[in-house]
């Protein structure tokens, strides 16, 4: 089980709101007429609307059973996950601004897509993330400090993937979809599909972005998964942007429909609705584990912040769009739902806030006190077996370093 596991909470209504978004909106931005920002359309599975009301739509009925299984404690757990990972994100962004991280890729706005899918995973499932899946990492029990370490530059991925069944971040766009598919083919060979044993049958989830769908690797992953019927769920967070390029530069039809061309189902889900994401992903994972093969899920969401801290989105998108999406915030809607339905009280919300504050301290202090690796360590993990050139270089390196220490 994950270290960051869901913990329960208390009773009644909502307290202060801390969505902690990035750029402030100026009156000037608001003068721009609000464009029609795609709302996902009727094909989109939704269970909680932006106002936090439980809704049933034609396409969502098929997945309702999975949402129905959720206890109030589960729902509070989601809220906690969403809030905590957003706080991690806020803190990381701040740390980057203060020069403590080289760069940070914010998940702001995508928390529900990540937590909903991450919580649908079983321990024996395996996740293959991009560089933005901090919320999934959280659900898998990876200490956020590990993520920050990578963005700080102390390593290129500091956790043991097999400990949490959470692969290292993959920066090469799309590559991980093939790794995930191969891993799923390994699961098949291990006989861990369709046995009916709920603790044995396993699936893989591969995360990627809307931009990634253009990469040949992703299509090849669809081909391999389709042909082998591999137990893999392709989870595309369509946050509407690939850095500065909108969806229209990557596809001319909705992305979930891509799966039709490869012979497996594609589902669009409201990526800002943690319930719907959970239900749809749970369904797709069940299908995979039971031997029904792959599914593509397109989580319809929005990158609320910059692509990374190095990016400047004012160059290519209007703030009015961002405003539209603020109204669809994943945390606000769950909070409204929990409060309105009496599933959580202010003490609970306050407790989560307090926990978030603690977590922020953990993240900040952990980052500031993170030791730099030694120079020598870069020679350590290149090969498993002896490599004469590397051994010689290591020796030279050590001697050369020593020549300075010796006051050369």
């Amino acid at each position, binding site marked *: 089980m994950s270290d960051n596991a869901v913990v329960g909470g208390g009773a009644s209504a909502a307290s202060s709101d801390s969505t902690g978004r990035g750029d402030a909106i100026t009156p000037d931005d608001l003068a721009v007429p609000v464009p029609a920002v795609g709302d996902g359309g009727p094909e989109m599975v939704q269970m909680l609307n932006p106002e936090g009301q439980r809704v049933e739509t034609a396409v969502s009925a098929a997945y309702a059973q999975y949402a129905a299984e959720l206890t109030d404690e589960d729902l509070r757990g989601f809220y906690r996950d969403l809030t905590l990972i957003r706080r991690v994100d806020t803190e990381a962004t701040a740390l980057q601004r203060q020069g403590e991280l*080289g*760069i940070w890729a914010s998940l702001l706005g995508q928390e529900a897509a990540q937590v909903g899918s991450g919580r649908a995973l079983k321990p024996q499932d395996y996740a293959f993330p991009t*560089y933005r899946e901090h919320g999934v990492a959280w659900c898998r029990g990876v200490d956020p400090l590990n993520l920050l370490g*990578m*963005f*700080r*530059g*102390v*390593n*290129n991925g500091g956790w043991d993937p097999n400990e949490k069944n959470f692969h290292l971040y993959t*920066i*090469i*766009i799309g590559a991980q979809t093939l790794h995930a598919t191969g891993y799923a083919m390994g699961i098949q060979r291990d006989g861990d599909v369709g046995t009916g044993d709920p603790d044995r049958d396993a699936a893989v989830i591969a995360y990627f972005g809307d*931009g*990634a769908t*253009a*990469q*040949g*690797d992703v299509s090849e992953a669809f081909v391999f998964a389709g042909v082998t019927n591999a137990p893999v769920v392709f989870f595309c967070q369509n946050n509407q942007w*690939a*850095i*500065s*390029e909108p969806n229209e*530069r*990557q596809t001319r039809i909705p992305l979930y429909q891509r799966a039709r061309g490869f012979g497996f189902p594609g589902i669009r889900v409201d990526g800002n609705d943690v319930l719907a994401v959970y239900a749809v992903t749970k369904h797709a994972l069940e299908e995979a584990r039971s031997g029904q093969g792959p599914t593509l899920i397109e989580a319809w969401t929005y990158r609320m912040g910059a692509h990374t801290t*190095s*990016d*400047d989105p004012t*160059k*290519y998108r209007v703030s009015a769009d961002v405003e539209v999406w603020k109204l669809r915030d994943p945390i606000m809607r769950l909070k409204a739902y929990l409060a309105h339905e009496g599933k959580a009280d202010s003490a609970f919300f306050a407790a989560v806030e307090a926990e978030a504050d603690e977590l922020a301290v953990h993240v900040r202090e952990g980052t500031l006190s993170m030791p*730099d*690796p030694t*120079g020598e*360590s*870069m*020679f350590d993990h*290149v090969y498993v077996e002896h490599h004469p*050139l*590397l051994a010689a*270089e290591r020796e030279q*390196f050590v001697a*050369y*370093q020593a020549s*300075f220490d010796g006051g050369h």
Partner: protein
Amino acid sequence: MPQLTIAKAVTNGLRAAMEKDPKVVLMGEDIGKLGGVFRVTEGLQKDFGEDRVMDTPLAEAGIVGTAIGMALRGYRPVVEIQFDGFVYPAFDHIISQVAKMRARSLGTIRLPIVIRIPVGGGIGAVEHHSESNEAYFAHTAGLRVVCVSNAEDAYWGIQQAIETDDPVIFYEPKRRYWDKGEVDVSGASRGLFTAAVAREGRDCTVVAYGPMVKTCLQAAEAAAEEDKALEVIDLRSLSPLDLDTLAASVEKTGRLVVVHEASTFLGMGAEIAASITQRCFYHLEAPVLRVGGYNLPYPPSRLEEEFLPDLDRVLDAVDRSLAF
């Protein structure tokens, strides 16, 4: 003469090439409204339109593959690869198509494609953003590979690369993008495919390209204080190599140190050492020494200063050469 950053010099060079020849088109990820992640194409889409400055889908094989098709139709595509580590999905098209198409067609086809790649480390980036992969392309017959080190060469070099009817891999030293230098915009394209003597000296030749030229010039400055006169050569062209310029220098100094960020094993230094040793066998007082990256994947950024050649490592190699 105007002072320009290297980045801006490329921008202006691209603009000049686009103004001169309507067949020049730019393709790449985020090069339109954003102007590219390094802002090198800033303002160009606004001025030349989306047909000539095209934000492509996120797929490098697709970018280079369609650029080939555009070139076959008579265009002169200039492709931007966002970072050095992202060129590999396009490797097949570069190696099997771009490099070989002319020979395949017995000369009936010309593929005047330029592939711009911001190269090298030293910017504190995450993995895949600091690669030095020039040796792969330099080993590939049919390509020209260049790497500029200063604003003037950037301005003229990009234009010369675009004018050339051969395909060119055009490396831009990303950590020097914001370094300024004088650019003489009069006259015509010049010198991209030859080496330049960046500083004269008689004691030891140091050859570098792109980001390491500055490091070597600083090393030469430091060495001068100890009365050692280093001759610094800026290669500019990695394929073909301007061996004449190199050999002339080595015949004078009798010593050669090659410096680059890429791993030494089969890096440019290997070829330079092999060919200069063959050509200047009786002039060399010491073996050609190589200073480069270690033979390991580019390390996490907190270690890059220890990985990358710096002034001290260059001087150390010079001293070792002089001690022979």
